[in-house]
Structures are given as structure tokens and as C-alpha cells.
């Protein structure tokens, strides 16, 4: 391979209950990111690794701290008040610098819950540290693993979903019901096309509020949102769970391309970095 002068570098966090790091990293590699590192949260908090080295931060799914205080609550608390090294900068400042430099963040499932609870999305008024929406218990009151159809807002600024109209992916969560923090926020999300992905009918034409197509009762059928830059994106369904056609629940009865639909999210991110950030 011809060495590139500048390389796309992705970081995938793990530790404290994260559990989708392997497949998230696999998605980044298949999308041809040049460097993909799986890094323990404490390696960052102890200053061995900094986010500054990377372009794409992946926050995978899992059960951070067991979701004991509510999904990703304890982890958000951990990161919000952590300092890097014994007396270093606040981790929050490192993260804000990463965002300010125009880099990308993707949170899937528990990673989405973490982003929301840290306030990284939707972050209206550029306030990346204030929680404005939430994700809470599914209306069914239970964890569910099931595949859902997602209609993508093509007008959304989201970089990860460029060129995607609809996508079929699994959800695997107990706390995925999206609730905006008031009518004002709900309106802004809609007006600014920040509702990137909605639970929909199988032909991706309209959003659905009925169970089980909408698996959790999310307001406005919201499955994923981004910030106004489109560079920070989180959603409950798992694109990293559909990287290969054999992941599809009906691959033995349908003609499917080799590549799974989830890979496009990672390809979009890597392509954007190559074009805009290198």
C-alpha cells in the first residue's frame, strides 16, 4: 500500500461496562480508517493517550457502570468531573477542544445515552455541556433485542448518514425512549433537521409510533440525533452490528449485498475526515 502522508485516525473507547468496542473498531477498519485504536477510558484519564491524536471518537454501546443510576448517568458524571492525570486539565476541556477542532464523535446505544447525558447533543446554543434531551425506560419496561427500520432525514446536517435514505439495524436496549427537554427543544430539533433517524415502516416512508416498529415509544419516533454541525451524532440502533450480510436476520431468504448497511455510517465519517480534516 502506498503510505499516505496524513492518516485518518479513529479511537474507540472501552472499559467500565462498554461492550461493543470490537465491532465498532471493526467498522472503522472496514471503512478504511488508517489507525483504529481501542483505548481504555483510564488510559485517557491518566494521560497516557489524548483525544488530540485522533479524528473520530467512537463511544460504543454497553452498560456503563451497569447503568446503575440510569443509562450512562454514572459514566457521564465520571467524565464530566474527571481530570486528566493527577493535576492535569479537565477531561471535559480535552473533549471540547476535540469538538472545536471540527472532529467527529459517534455514540451508539449506550454511547448515545452518554453523549446525551454529557450534553454533547443536541447542544443548542453551542453549549456542549448541558443536557437538553434524555433517553429513558422503554414504554414496555423491558430490554429488547430486535431489528428496526430507520428513516433518515436527508436534509439533516449529519455527516454519518450522508446518502442514506433508510437503514435496517438492531436495537438492544432497555432505556431508549427519547424525550426532549421541553417543546422549545423539540421544535428546534425538527426545524433544524437534527432528528437524523426515526423508527419507521419497512419502506422507510414515514415514522411510526406503534410498537414494535417503534420499539420504545420515543417521542417523534426519534432513534438518533446530531448537533447543528452534523459532526456529533448518536443513535440507539447499532450500525456496527450490521457490517456483513450474515448479520441480517433474514440473510438466508433475501438477496443482500455482501456489505452490511451499517458500514455506510463509518465510511461517511472516514471520507469526511479525509476530505475535510487532513
Amino acid at each position: 500500500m502506498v503510505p499516505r502522508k496524513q492518516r485518518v485516525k479513529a479511537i474507540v473507547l472501552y472499559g467500565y461496562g462498554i461492550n461493543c468496542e470490537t465491532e465498532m473498531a471493526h467498522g472503522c477498519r472496514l471503512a478504511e480508517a488508517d489507525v483504529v485504536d481501542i483505548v481504555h477510558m483510564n488510559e485517557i484519564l491518566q494521560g497516557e493517550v489524548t483525544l488530540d491524536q485522533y479524528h473520530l471518537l467512537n463511544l460504543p454501546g454497553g452498560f456503563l457502570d451497569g447503568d446503575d443510576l440510569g443509562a450512562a448517568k454514572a459514566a457521564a458524571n465520571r467524565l464530566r468531573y474527571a481530570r486528566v492525570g493527577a493535576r492535569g486539565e479537565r477531561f471535559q476541556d480535552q473533549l471540547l477542544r476535540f469538538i472545536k477542532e471540527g472532529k467527529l464523535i459517534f455514540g451508539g446505544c449506550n454511547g448515545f445515552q452518554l453523549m446525551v447525558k454529557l450534553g454533547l447533543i443536541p447542544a443548542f446554543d453551542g453549549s456542549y455541556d448541558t443536557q437538553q434531551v434524555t433517553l429513558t425506560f422503554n414504554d414496555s419496561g423491558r430490554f429488547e433485542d430486535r431489528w428496526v427500520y430507520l428513516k433518515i432525514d436527508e436534509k439533516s446536517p449529519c455527516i454519518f448518514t450522508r446518502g442514506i435514505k433508510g437503514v435496517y439495524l438492531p436495537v438492544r436496549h432497555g432505556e431508549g425512549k427519547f424525550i426532549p427537554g421541553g417543546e422549545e427543544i423539540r421544535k428546534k430539533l425538527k426545524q433544524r433537521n437534527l432528528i437524523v433517524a426515526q423508527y419507521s415502516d419497512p419502506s422507510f416512508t414515514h415514522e411510526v409510533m406503534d410498537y414494535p416498529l417503534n420499539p420504545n415509544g420515543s417521542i417523534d419516533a426519534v432513534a438518533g440525533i446530531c448537533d447543528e454541525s452534523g459532526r456529533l451524532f448518536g443513535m440507539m440502533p447499532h450500525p456496527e452490528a450490521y457490517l456483513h450480510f450474515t448479520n441480517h436476520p433474514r440473510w438466508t431468504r433475501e438477496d443482500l449485498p455482501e456489505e452490511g448497511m451499517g458500514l455506510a455510517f463509518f465510511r461517511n465519517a472516514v471520507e469526511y475526515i479525509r476530505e475535510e480534516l487532513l
Partner: protein
Amino acid sequence: MPHRIEIGLKSHIRDALGEKLKRRIRDDLNLEVKSVNTISVYTIDADLSPEQLEMVANGPFSDPITQMYAIDRPLAQSFDWLIEVGFRPGVTDNVGKTAREAIELRLGVQLKDQERVYTSTQYLIKGNLERPGVEKICNGLLVNPLVQRFEIIPRHLWNGRRGLEPTVPRVKIDQKIQVEEIGLQITDRALLKLSHDRVLALSLPEFKAIQAYFKKDSVIRERGEFGLGGKITDVELEALAQTWSEHCKHKIFNGLIEYTDERGEAEVIDSLFNTYIKGATETIRGKKGGEDLCLSVFDDNAGVIKFNDSYSLVFKVETHNTPCALDPYGGALTGIVGVNRDPFGTGKGAKLIFNVDTFCFAPPHYSKPLPPRLFHPKRVYEGVREGVEHGGNKSGIPTINGCVVFDDRYAGKPLVYCGTGGIMPSKIRGEPSHIKSPLPGDLIVMTGGRIGKDGIHGATFSSEELHEESPTTAVQIGDPITQKKMTEFLLKARDLGLYHSITDNGAGGLSSSVGEMARHIGCRLELEKAPLKYAGLNPWEILLSEAQERMTLAVASSEIEPFLQLAEKMDVEATVLGTFTDTGKLHVLYGGRTVGYLDMDFLHAGLPKMRLKATWKSKGFQEPQLPMDEDLTETLQGMLSRFNICSKESIIRQYDHEVQAGSVVKPLVGKENDGPSDAAVIRPILDSYEGVVVSNGICPRYSDIDTYHMMACAIDEAIRNNVAVGGRIDRMVGLDNFCWPDPIQSEKTPDGEYKLAQLVRANKALYDFTTAFGVPCISGKDSMKNDYLIGKTKISIPPTVLFSAMGKIDDARKAVTMDAKRPGDLVYILGETLNELGGSEYYAMRGYIGNNVPKVDAEKAKELYRRLNKATEEGLIASCHDCSDGGLGVALAETAFAGMLGMEIDLGKVPAAGVDRDDLLLFSETQSRFIVTISPDKKKAFEKAFEGIAYGLVGEVTLASVFKTTGLSGREIIRADIRDLKEAWKRPLGT
């Protein structure tokens, strides 16, 4: 002063958990309530200022969008009854632990060791209920008194300003730490009393062996050198009792058995385990020669086989029956996270890639009166399901395969089988990964959780039936996140070569883990160094505690610095507890003083062999003479709605079966993602197509007739499920998990000789059929006291074996699922149907057992499986479904409705012998049969592939959604819409 922070939902937010509870109060208890609301309570036993409490309450403890909080005042306002449920002292409180850590992080302080957070939940119930109804909700649904406490407050006694005083369930132990010395030169009666009082489960011959050991001159002299007298210490006695327990030593499987068969012919079997299980594996390995897959069998925590040149697979299944009987949720949670540590502690340590679970319960609508100490089967079902959900999902391991079996007799003891598979590079730093051993001079290191009184006597107590005084310390609640952090740390340490050996702390705690590891060398264990959850534990309790989430390692002294540093970096507790030695002794110290000194040889090999009798006599049930219905449509629907046949979707959906992204054949397949898969296929290495195929077989109903055939059928079922999706029979291994009622003849068990004969027969079948199929067992487990005995009530489970199979598919893209694919596809039956309805689901539905139990013809079956493997490889098969419970009728209907397609079937074309009735033909449970559909253009190649095998082209897949069957007389006997059949199948346990 302790504080209470209460967190409730804002008024416009839906309380999904409260609503779910309301539904369960209605469904499970037949009580109507208007509403249930929940409030989370944190009781903070720490010195915090009002400002600090505020920062915590509106920080990590509450969500600003959905929740509100109150500090030292109640949120509860309108309700008819208030119930608050919290833990008892010493019970693992995972949320409390996370909350404590969150306080420290939020405030930037370090709390004192005794400053803790305790959680509880308030339920606010509105509705027209009297106190007995509320108590029913507590005792029947919300509270397990072994681990929880509760308070009930009616609205008229509520002080809306003061609320409840904080309750701090701090552990207080008043005992003086001491080592008791016990004279063993006492009467036999006194010895047995000692065994009973201390839950030692030691028999008289075993006590005699201990007495004799302590009289030996060399023993007296050596013990004297370390200040020990002629009496045994409680540390030694407890260590011996647990090492010698049925649970750890498998005394029945290793005993000397005189077996007499029906003709009166007697033989002596020296160890069922060595003769039949290990013996079969040795025979198979010998025959396979260069094709042998086994790398490490029966001598580590799990079996290890070759996956390919670069990787090895590890697999183990365990049971956790008694803990689940006492606390379904906690028992199942520790069951799954406990078995995770087996493959994790095998060889140098494996990455965990799948979980499996099989449950045996009494039916959820059980309406007979329940004897004392038993939970209603519905509650056991829900609790166990949820425990495995939390354990598996939070550990990030997909639950890919399982089964649920219902029978009234499991009311006495539910069976909860939990299994885990792992993968490891075949070599780590140039050394084979499945081999390990500690070296003298290595340090004994314990990692993970801390030690409390949890689980003390688990090993000895699971070696007894469930009785009035079954100890409640045996109940514990697992902590999957602490374990996950530890496994991540240890895998890293493994790859850096920071330890020589690893094993888990399960039954018997340190006594077992260190005792086993040091078996061939010796050790010096310093108990006072062990990190404790709370003060006040006696040395023997530290040694025996089965507190969860702990591994024991042998670390070279040169590596200890980097090992401990890495642990600290990854936020995992690791403590040096002593050294491995070359003395051949288990040397235990506390505070510098020797408190136990035993020969390793005696500890591990001093146990006298048990001598037992087994006598077989067939029960000889009659075949029933059933009236024959002209139309079998309703009969088929009735069969599809049987608990043993119906959809288990509601359980499967709540388990993450896809994490790690290697999922190829999921537990639910077909047009609407709801058909019942025969086996699971995963790709553990994401850039390879090689797949692992996992399946199971279990058929306890056949045990009522003959356990020999029960075992044969379980093996065949596991293998054929595996083959159905594409698992190669020549690359397949098995695991045996026996669960038996007490088979030792005694006053309590007057039919012990019969039950032991049942065990002998099952073992004979295991030998006969694993060798015939060439599928060796690589590991297994037995649980031998699955009885309930209180007062005069005895409930014994039917003898039950779960046989698990792990196979390989070279190219996962060739895997086949069970759903009919296209209209016009041809429907074939592979294998001959015989009149074998003894123990069948059909007879059970009609109220009979019968006698013609299915018998396996292994040679024929093996040939069929090989051919099917080849046909699958060649892409000839569109769908393949195994025939098991409910026979052809059920398997055909499932194939059709999973594909949402109709079917026209002619029973006259079914290859059969000696079956002259439509109902018997449809529902016979003859083994080694499949329903296969193929594309019509493959007909010629397909029929050639199965030349010489009994098969029949029985019909066609149709676009019209009608399932039609013509009987032997040529008349239509079934006509149903597949949607109605599916509905009948999905209704009983919901989705």
C-alpha cells in the same frame, strides 16, 4: 447522620416500570390496582453537607428532563399504600456501590471505608386493596425475605412532611475473630451432629478417614512444629468438607457401584465418570487420531478444543439450581456470571464469546398448593429470566441458544443451566494457551471483588436437598460490571505474560481455587491479607467464602510490580495473599499464626470411595388406546400451544443475542424474525467466515420410561440440531450436564437403588452414543440432590441431562435456517418414522406416558448427518428443521409459518414403519429426522445425495397461507391458516 435522597419521575413522565409492575400484579397475583408509581431511594450513610447532598441529588442521581428529587423529605404524596423494599445487611447492592463512587467523583472527595450508600425502592400503589392484598404483592412479587426487607405504610399513617427515617442496613458482626479447635475423638452420633450443625455434609466413613489422618505420627509431629495440637481446626475441617463435597468431588460419579439389571445380572462399576464419560472421550480420541480436536478435557475449568490453526475454543455449562430455588434472580445472575469465569479461568484465560441457557420449571400457571419455602413457578421463571438477562447482557456476551422445559416436578427444584464459550489464541507468547501451572515461589494473587459472608457453604449445601434450615448465606447477587472490568484487565495481563496460572473462585472460594492450583506443589496462604467487604469474618469464613467476581492467579515475583500496576490502572483490586511452595502442604495462616496445615495428597485424594447399589427394573407403562379424531386441526393447534413447544420469544427478545457482531444464525429466524432456530451460528473472528455452531438436547420426559433412551435422545437431539444449520458432525464436541434426584438409598430416598440405576443407564447410553457418533464430551458437571424435602412432602425432579453440542461450519455463508423459503419448494422428510410416542408431548397432552420411547439408531443417524452436511455444503438445502417435541406435525407447521408460506402435505408419502394412524404419524417423536425444503431445480441432485437413506417427498410449499394435510386414507385431516397456527404457538408465553 444518614440522609435520604429520593428520586421520582416528573408528573408528565410515564412510569414504565410502575406500569409493568401493575401488569404483573394483575397477571401473576390476580389483583387489580389502579396504578403503581416508583421512587428510587438512596440512603447515604456518610458525612455530607446540605450543599454536597444537593450537588449529588441534582447531579449523578437524577435526570434533569424526567426526574425530580428530594433530600431528607419524602416525595410520596398520593397513594393508598406505600411499600419500601431494600436489601438486608451484607447483600450485594450494585447500585449502592455505583452511587457511592459517583458521590466521590462528583464531590472530588474520598469517602471513609464505612461510609456507604444503600438503595431501596418505593412503590406507591393506588387501588382498592386491603392489607392482605398488599402483603401478597410484597411476598408474592416484590420481596424475597432472604435478601430483602420491606415496610408497608397505609395512607392514613403517612406523615407527608417527615416521611420515612433512613434505614442503614450496615453489617454488624459481634463475633470475636477466632479459630475453633474441634476434638474428633467423639462418638459417631456426635460426629454426624457436627456435620449437620456446621453444614459439612460429611458422612461417617469420611469422618473416619479424617480421624485416621489426624492420628498419624508424622501428621501430629508436623502440625506440632507449627503450634497445632491434636484437634482439627475449623479452618481445616471446613476446607476438607468443602473439598470433599459431592459438588466438588462428584462422589457418586466416582463411587463403586454394584449395578443389577432387569435380568438379575450384576456388574461392578468403578466410577461412572471414568468408565463411561472420560472412557468414551478417550475411545473417540484414539479412533480419531490426527483428526482429534481435543486439547484439554476434564482437567481444567472447561474443555478446550482446536478451532483452527490459530485459535482454540473453550466451553463449559454449569447448573445453579438450589440458589435459584432460594432466590431466582440472584441465583440465576450468579449462575451466569459464575460460569463465565470457567472458560475465563481455563488455560491461560479465554475471551468470552457466547452464553447459553436452559431452564426447567414447573408450568407458569401451576395451581396446586405450594409447600413451604417454594416460590410460585411463575415467579421463579421471571426471576431466573431476569437474572440471566442482567448477567449476560451487562457482561457483553451474546446469549445465543437455549431451551425451556416444563414439568410439574420442577416446582421442587428449578434447573438453571448456564453455559459460556470462549476463544483464545492457540499460542500465547509462544506457549500453548491451554496449558498452565504455578511454580513454587510464585505469589498467590486474588483479583476482582472482595470477600464477605456471601455464599459460605454453597458447595456443601448444594450437596443436600432443599430443607427447612438451608442456609441463606448461600444466596448472593452477582456484579457483572466488576467482573467485566476484571476480565478486561486479566486478558491484557495474559497477553503481556504477567501470570503463570489462573483459576476462578467458585464453589469453595479460596479453599478450592488455591487448593486446586497448589495441588501438586503446596502453598502458604495468609488469610488476614484478603480484602474484606466488612470486618468480623473468621479465618475459615474468609477461606470458604464464595463471594463472586474473583479470580486467583499465580504471578512470578518478578512480574508482580507490573501486574499490580496494570490492575490499579484499570481500576481492579488485586491482592497478594501468599506464595506457592514445594512443601506439598496446604499451609494456612492468620495474623502470622498457623491455622491450618494439611497434606495436599490427603486433601485431594484422602476421600474414601463411596459404595452404592443400583437395581434396574423397567416400570412397564402401557401404550394408551386413544380415540381417534377425524380432524386433527385443533389437535395440532393444541400441540403448538403446549408450554414445551410454544414460542419462547418473550425470553429470547430480552437477551442480547447479537453483541460482538458475529451473529449468523440467530435464535429467531424467518420472514417475520420469529421462527424457532435449531441452533446458533456465530463468527467469533469478524474477518473470517469460519463459524461456531451451538445447540442443545434435553428430553427428561423419556426418563419416566428409560433413562438409557433419554440420554441417547438428548445426544441425538443436540447433534441433529447442530447438523440442521450446517454444523459438521466430524468437527463436533459435547458437554454433559446431569441433574438427578438423590440416588442414594436411605430412609429419605427409599427408591435410591432405582434412581441410581437410572443414572447408570444414562451413563451407559452416553458411552454408547457419543462413541457411535464420534462426538466426545470435553467437560461436564453433575448436580445430584435435586429434591425438595420438608415435612412429609418430597418432590424429586425427573432425571434430566442437558447435552450441549459445539460444532464448526467452515463457511458460515452456507448455514441453513428452518423457515420455508419460496412457494413451489419441495418438502421432504429425512429419516423414518416409527411408532415411538412413549414419553411424547402428544401422549402428555392426552394424559398418558406410554411405553414406546424413541430409540436412536446411531449408525443410520450418523450416515444421514454426514449426507446432510455434504448437501448443505453443496447448497442443495433451502430450509432444514429438526423434528423433536411434537414430531412431524409441529416441525412442518413451524417450517411453514416461520416462512409465512402455506404447505400441502400428504402423510401417505411419509417414510414410516408400523404406524397406521394419522395422529401417531404426525406426533411420534422418532429421533434423527428432519423436515427439509428444496428448490425444485435441485430435486435430482438432492435425491441423489440421499440415495439409500429413508426419505419421502411429502409435499410442497405454497403461496396460499394455508397449511393442509392429507391423511393416510387420502382424506384432508388438517386445514388451517398459518397465521392461526402461529398465533396458537405464540400466545402461551407471549412475545
